[in-house]
């Protein structure tokens, strides 16, 4: 195993730990926005894993997957935010 590969493996290990930590925040919450941003960070972690994995396996195609990931995760986040605002507006209208 070359130095480079070792570094890549270490990076993956680091990101794996990071992913788990992100999930800890996700599970703990407490608020929904917390979970949303941890999901955001989670997808960034996935992106990183994909990018490094692409290097490790010498397969550029995986970078495309990462590219799409970056776009897609954002849409999810947006929708969650949309949910929060809508929910809020609805409940405000109910309150009064």
């Amino acid at each position, binding site marked *: 195993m070359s130095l480079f590969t070792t570094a890549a493996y270490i990076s993956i290990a680091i990101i794996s730990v990071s992913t788990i930590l992100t999930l800890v925040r996700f599970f703990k919450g407490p608020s929904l926005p917390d979970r949303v941003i941890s999901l955001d960070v989670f997808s960034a972690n996935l992106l990183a894993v994909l990018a490094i994995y692409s290097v490790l*396996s010498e*397969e550029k*195609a*995986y970078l495309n997957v990462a590219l799409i990931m970056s776009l897609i995760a954002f849409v999810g986040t947006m929708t969650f935010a949309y949910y929060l605002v809508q929910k809020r507006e609805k409940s405000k209208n109910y309150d009064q």
Partner: protein
Amino acid sequence: MNLIISLIIGVLFSASLFLMFQKSFFKLIIGVILFGYATTFFLFTVGGVTKNAPPLLNEAAIAVDQLADPLPQALTLTAIVISIGVQLFVIVLLKKVYEEVGTEDLDELNTTDRIK
């Protein structure tokens, strides 16, 4: 690899069924969707899984047996898209059931097939 794949498949199927057995319609739907994921994953892996060799060819011909079998991938793709169709429908069905029946308690959705 085989062990892990089997375990993932097992966990996904168990989880999906477990969700379907809950009282909440919402969880049923998540269970249904997970069931779809589990089956497509099963299709993909059992159909023929290879690591580090996506079926992308270059002009510089690679030895064919080095690459993954493209067919299970194509089938999985088709299956995912079809499942998506069903999933979207089911999700909207959830909304409609809630509006019309006024509950998401599966235990209350038991009238149509009782003897009356």
